[in-house]
Structures are given as C-alpha cells and as structure tokens.
C-alpha cells in the first residue's frame, strides 16, 4: 500500500477560491479529495495516459468574457450558453423562447435529487475537483413529454495561459422528452491551461437525449472531461465525441442503464497530430434486461500522436437479452504514432449477444495506388481514404448545421473534404 506523504491534490487546489460552504455536494467532494492522489500509470485505468507533469503545475481561475459570435454555429439555431474559463458568461448567452426547456445556473440544481441520481457512482480525482471547485455551469431541464425547440449549445472557451476551467453541467430529461445538446470546446492564447469539465445527466423513462461533443482546443491544453449519465426504462442516449484538439485529452464517459428497453449509443472520432494524446474511456453498465448498446470509435493518428481506447460493457447478472456491440478501429499514418486499444466485456448474465472488435492498421496501399493510377496525387489519395475511414462516424451526426460546421473544420485543419 502506498503512503501519501504530502497530499498533492490538496496542494493542487490550495489556491483555488474557497466556494461557499452551503453546498453538501461540494463539502462531500472536498472531504473525499483529502484522501486522494492523482493517478499514475500504475493504475490500470490510467496506464497509457500520464498526467503527472500536468498536475504538478499551478492553474489560475480567471473570469473573462469573449465574443460569442466567434463560436456560434451557423444555422444551428440553438440556445447559446457561453462559459469562459469555467465561468458562465451570461451577457454573451442567449436563451430562446422554448417552453420545453428550463435553463438555470448549476447552483439551482436540487442537491437531494442529484445525490439520489448519482448514488453509488464512482468518482475520480478530477471529477471531485470539479465538483468541489466548479465555478459555473448550467442545469437544464427538458420538460415531460416535450421536445426542446432548439438544440442546447454549450460553448466553452479557455482564454488565457495557465488557467483552469472547472465547468459543470447537469442535463435532466423528464420522462418522454427529447433534446439535443451540442458541447463545443475552444481556446485562445491558452498555453498550459486545463479544461476540467463535468457533464452529467438523467434521461428519464422514454426520453431521448443526443449529445454531440466537439473538442477543438489548441494543442497546448489539457482536457479532462467526466461525463456521467443515468438512463431509465425505455430511454435513448446517444453521444458522438469528436476530438481533434488538446495536448492531452481524456474523455471519460460512464452510462448506467437502470431500466429495460433502453438504447445506448456512443460514437467517437479522434484525429491526432504532432504530440497529441487522445484517450477515450467508456463504460456502459447494463443492469436490466432487453437493452441494446452500440459503440463505434475510430481514430486516425499521425506524427507522434498517441491514442487510447478503453471501452467497457458490463452486463449484470439480471440483465438478460442484452445486445451490445463495440468496435474500435484505428489507422496510423506515421511510424511514430501509436494506439492502445482495449475493448472489454464483463458479462455476468447468460443470455446475451455481445461482440467487440478492435483493429489498428495502416492505409491500404493497394487502394492508394489505385486512386493514384486514376490521376489523383498521393496526398489527395490518402486524404480520400482517411475521410472515407472516419466518415461513417461523422455520419452519426445527424444535425446538418453541425455536420457542415464539422466538415468545414476538417477542411481547414486537415485539408480533408467529405
């Protein structure tokens, strides 16, 4: 057993503003932190993702404002909620007329209800830091049997060096409701800054939630997100996670399925260049029978970038007739790039249909030659093949305005056309 001599976590948070003590959630999180340490690569869950050098640094909490127009997605027609360095920028935010949706500051979230929903879930040091020291976020409620008239666009910007942005949101879909959340992450002049975000939610019976997450921060930002959702009977949950930014990104996604006839879908596309490290960790915990889940993660890694995929599906003993599919495919574009892929199934029930697969390969050189023999330059031939590879994940983004925005981004950042 390891003995913690001096507590690095308490050292890390020492300069953070002491939040008001009225919140039980914060108090519990702070208490839990005093007994914790940052994960090392000796911890299985963090074996390939080394955070040591990032957590030795000191980060500041600085409130700021940005011009929302720089981050608006054309044609999305969304409720726009802006968060700069972890603080809610109300002046730049716009909540549209929508009787299906109620948006309030995260402080307004009923702690009793919250604690009840997340009861028994696993926290980690970063989610606890977020919980204890969050500086802003929203609590969204989509009302019973209603469909949100507009997508909810959560715009996160890190503006400045050596900052930490502890943003925290909770999305609550009441039974029978439907909504789409678009979460985008941007940065400017953000050297050595840290986005430590938590997005949690509760999808009640027969409700349907779609989340599209797009992380495009500069390649000098540490990004750790903890996404945690609970699904009730008959509900649908879909998240598409697209990552092109950050020097080190950890997307931690955990869904507990607490009812029958649910569908859970997770898709991810990650594109690494330079020295980027992109880690997708997912858990789907099936507690009840007759549910389906599907996961498709695809990565394209170039230069000296590295990728990690660890997807776990747990099928509990009483959860019969579960169908769970999991697939992770990767293409390495350079000799210096690498990927660690670990799809996992943990099955305790006896009547299930589960499959998982993982591939890591290079572009098909025969296909490259075929395209070149028709007059396409080698660079364009490779681009076409990469776009084709990653394209079926991007197809999962059904929102056309967002899809157009993503296509434009890929064209500007990578010169890839879809």
């Amino acid at each position, binding site marked *: 057993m390891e003995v913690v001599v001096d507590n690095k976590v308490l050292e890390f948070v020492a300069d953070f503003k002491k939040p008001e003590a009225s919140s039980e959630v914060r108090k519990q999180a702070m208490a839990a932190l005093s007994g914790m340490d940052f994960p090392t690569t000796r911890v299985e869950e963090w074996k390939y993702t080394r955070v040591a050098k990032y957590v030795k640094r000191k980060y500041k909490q600085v409130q700021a404002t940005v011009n929302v127009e720089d981050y608006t997605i054309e044609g999305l027609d969304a409720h726009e909620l802006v968060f700069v360095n972890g603080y809610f920028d109300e002046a730049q935010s716009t909540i549209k007329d929508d009787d299906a949706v109620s948006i309030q500051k995260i402080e307004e979230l009923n702690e009793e209800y919250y604690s009840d929903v997340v009861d028994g879930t696993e926290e980690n040091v970063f989610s606890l830091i977020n919980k204890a020291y969050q500086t802003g976020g929203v609590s969204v409620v989509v009302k019973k049997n209603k469909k949100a008239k507009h997508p909810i666009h959560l715009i996160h910007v890190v503006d400045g060096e050596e900052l930490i942005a502890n943003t925290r949101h909770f999305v609550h879909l009441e039974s029978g409701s439907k909504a789409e959340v678009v979460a985008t992450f941007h940065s400017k002049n953000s050297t050595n800054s840290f986005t430590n975000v938590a997005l949690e939610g509760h999808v009640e019976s027969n409700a349907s939630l779609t989340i599209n997450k797009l992380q495009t921060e500069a390649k000098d930002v540490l990004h750790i997100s903890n996404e945690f959702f609970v699904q009730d009977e008959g509900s649908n949950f879909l998240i598409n996670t697209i990552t092109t930014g950050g020097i080190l990104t950890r997307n931690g996604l955990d869904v507990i399925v607490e009812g029958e006839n649910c569908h859970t879908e997770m898709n991810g596309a990650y594109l690494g260049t330079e020295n980027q490290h992109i880690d997708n960790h997912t858990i789907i915990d099936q507690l009840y029978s007759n549910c389906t889940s599907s996961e498709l993660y695809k990565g394209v890694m170039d230069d000296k970038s590295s990728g990690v995929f660890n997807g776990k599906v747990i099928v509990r003993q009483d959860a019969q007739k579960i169908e769970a599919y999991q697939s992770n495919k990767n293409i390495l574009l350079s000799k210096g790039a690498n990927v660690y892929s670990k799809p996992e199934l943990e099955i305790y029930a006896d009547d299930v249909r589960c499959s998982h697969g993982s591939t890591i390969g290079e572009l*098909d*050189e*025969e*296909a490259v*030659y*075929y*395209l*070149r*023999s*028709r*007059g*396409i*330059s*080698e660079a*364009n*031939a490779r681009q*076409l*093949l990469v*776009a*084709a*590879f990653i*394209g*079926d994940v991007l197809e999962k983004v059904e929102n056309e305005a967002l899809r157009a925005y993503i296509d434009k981004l890929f064209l500007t950042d990578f010169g890839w056309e879809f």
Partner: protein
Amino acid sequence: MLTIKNLHASVEEGAEILKGLNLEVKAGEVHAIMGPNGSGKSTLASVLAGKDGYEVTEGSVDFDGADLLDLEAEDRAKEGLFLAFQYPVEIPGVSNVNFLRTAMNEIREYRKEDKLSAKDFLAKVKVASNLVELNDKLSGRSVNVGFSGGEKKRNEIFQMAMLEPKLAILDETDSGLDIDALRIVSEGVNKLRNKDNAIILITHYQRLLEYIQPDFVHVLSDGKIIKTGGKDLALELEERGYDWINEEIAQ
C-alpha cells in the same frame, strides 16, 4: 505514341522478368499482347502504370515525348495513360463518382484546363455508365464494394470512358467474365476506340479478340516479344498453343 526500347525490369530485389522488350504503339492502333503464364504480361502493365515494387534496370519508354518511367503513377494518368486492372481493389467509403470527380479535376488542372461543371460531369457519368450498362446505383456506390467480378471489370471501362485516356492498357479484362459481360465490356471498348487513342490488350485467350479486333498481336515469352503478327496469329495461338513459336525460333 508509345515507344518501348529494350525494357528490362525486375521485381524489387528479385528475378528479372522483362528481358529486353521492344514495342511501338501508334495512335489509332489496338495491340494485343498474349503469352503464357509468367511470361511478364502483368509486369509490363504494372511497370508502364508505375506500380511500386518493380525496378527498371535498362531501357526506355517514351510516351508522346515524355519519359514515362520518370513520372509518378498519378502523372502518368495525367499524361493520358490508363490501366484497367486485372484485380480492381475495393475501397469502402470512397464513392465511385466522387473519386472520379477528384481525379478529373486534378487531371484538368495539370493540363491547365477549366474545371468540369457539375452538370457536365453528371452528363458524362450518364453517358459512360450507359456505355457499359452500369446502372446509376453502382456508379454512386463505394468503389467496387459489393460488385460482382463482371461489375468490377465494367467499372474499369466506365472509368476509362470518364477519363478518356490517350493510351489504355487492359490487363486481362476478359478474365472471369461470362459471355454477356464480355460482350458489354468489349462493345464499350470498341465505342471508345478512335483514331487518336490507342489500346493495349493483355490477354490469355483469343476470345476477347473476337470482340475487339486488334491491329497487331504480339507474343510475349520469357520477358520478350518473340513474335508479332496480325489478328490471325491469335487464332493460330488458340489452336496450337505457344510451344511451336519457340521451336520455330530454335530452328
């Protein structure tokens, strides 16, 4: 149009396969290259089209004034060379039509021509797909994915019709085709044939040459062209095999 002189080529770090091949192809001509397995037919096609993995040790290939062997595979295509593959690859996720649009625009840019408008492009797709009776669905699908053997070969000729090459090399395009597909492919090729372009047919069997009449038939054996004749030579080969030629030479 194409002048091959004393071409020697080997598999990288391997045996020599082409051992001093000479061939002259002029505009408007159709040449058939026949020969037994392992004579170097496909190697010739690969070397001309610029496939990696072959090393040219001697000789030259002039293509309308350009040193063909000095060009990258894509630039050979841009200069007007086309290879219809014996085994076309499947490329999931890349649509047939989209990749052709990319190719045609690159070729036009290389030749300093204007981009093709979407309307003109689609009109061309329609004409080309009708030519080989490839329905619209197939032309819009991923390249060769889920295509039958015959559809793959028809797709090669469809691409040839789109790209309008000066010189087309058809590598065993007839292999694996049933009689209907053979007729469709051949009729397509015949319609594309004109006084300004040339075609090299690489084939095992005479039956293709009943549909596409060659001006010249060459026999390739052990890396060299050992006999050249008219279309009747193909019939003789079909009847008598290849051995008599070697015997004839020995005498």
